[in-house]
């Protein structure tokens, strides 16, 4: 493993994308990044711009008005990137998702719009579960590097 691959595992930066919903998962996500668990020990940092991020944390179900923003934020995260969906809504739309008749306001989970790599179910998931999800994301990020390389060139 080269130093660049190591650096990718050693310094995953998170961007927190709140798609919509009740804020419960956002509170738990921020709780997972607080001094009690302190992921900065392992170089995990919350960044403010999607352009700085490696891991996109998506919480909540997507309202229809928010569809372009979700797509845009996903595209702004530079490759290689991983999406971690946190909470029941982000995993499958939960009680807001309705196929027929269609919910007039809510589209459903973000994986209908963007490829999601890791799902962390729960309403809301505990910080331990979220950290576990982020760790799974880091492992995927490490594996993703070689697969992503040829598509970048084209």
């Amino acid at each position, binding site marked *: 493993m080269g130093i*660049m691959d*190591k650096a990718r595992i050693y310094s995953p930066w998170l961007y927190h994308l709140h798609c919509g919903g009740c804020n419960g998962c956002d509170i738990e996500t921020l709780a997972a990044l607080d001094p009690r668990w302190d992921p900065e020990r392992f170089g995990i940092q919350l960044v403010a711009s999607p352009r700085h991020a490696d891991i996109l944390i998506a919480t909540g179900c997507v309202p229809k008005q928010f569809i372009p923003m979700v797509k845009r934020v996903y595209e702004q995260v530079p490759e290689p990137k991983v999406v971690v969906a946190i909470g029941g809504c982000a995993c499958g739309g939960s009680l807001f998702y309705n196929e027929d008749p269609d919910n007039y306001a809510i589209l459903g989970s973000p994986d209908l719009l963007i490829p999601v790599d890791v799902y962390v179910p729960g309403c809301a998931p505990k910080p331990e579960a979220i950290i576990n999800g982020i760790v799974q994301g880091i492992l995927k990020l490490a594996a993703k590097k070689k697969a992503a390389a040829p598509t970048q060139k084209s």
Partner: protein
Amino acid sequence: MVDMLFTAVTMLIMIPVALFAGILYVFLFRKLSARFQWRVGPVVSMYKDLAPLLGASRILQPLYDILKLFGKDTPVPDISRKTIFIASPYLAFICAFLAIFFIPFPGVPLLSTMEESLVIASYLLIGAVMFTILGAASSGSPWGAIGARRDIEIFLIYELGFVVALFSVGLVAGSLSLWEIATRPGLPMLILNPFAAVLLFLVIIGKLAIKPLDMAEAEAEIVAGPFTEYGGKYLGLFQLAKAFLFYDMVALFIALFLAPTLNSILWLPVYIIAVVVILFFITVMQVLHPRFQIAKAMSWYGRWVLVFGVLTAMMVLVLRFYWVV
């Protein structure tokens, strides 16, 4: 000829030394602020069961961040002024990088023996911040523009203090060569003119965007301020510039105010202690203060820079005319 060769060799050796010093300063800053906040911070010795996956130590965490950024895709927004947008991170990095050669290290004069090295170093340190502002202003992002505007407002104040602090020391020492100032016999300038030291410290917290004055970068408030549109290797260059700037500012403080400590390499332990003390005070500033509003920061910062600037100038008059140095 031998002198030139020696200078060239020391300059080559200085590049990795300054890089690792800058990285370690950033690490120490992060670790100390973490400890102040009852966190662990980047771990020095990794937990045994995690070590195979996560590495033995995170002392080089800032370096890993930079390397990772260099390995990522680099987005350039369509609405930006592409030439300036792409050139500014390189120029900011080059300015911060070149400044290391004009600031002496214990026993290593480098290019600081030049007659106007103080002026050159000050211009390079201005450039490092100025190109950050330029890049943000050309990014086409409203958040970048707001960040650039805030940066300029603080920039105007601390550059005033920077010039006063630098030239007050130059006036008392009777030289603009940093090497002559740094190896001056007699009492260190920290004791002769403590106001100038406080002034330069205020400048350092402004220049490095330490907490009460970090509203330019104001994370989450205006996205990431000047760095909003930067990603990948350009952000890596800015981070690298920041590491070098950290080294530059701390080294400049020691060169100006702790006069004989740079005479020989044997002073290295004292130099390291001085570095740790300065970083400790910088971290205390960071953790004690919340972020100021821009207007309040202007009045607070302006007031203290003015007070210490005037005190410094008066002290210089006293020292220059009534004190045989």
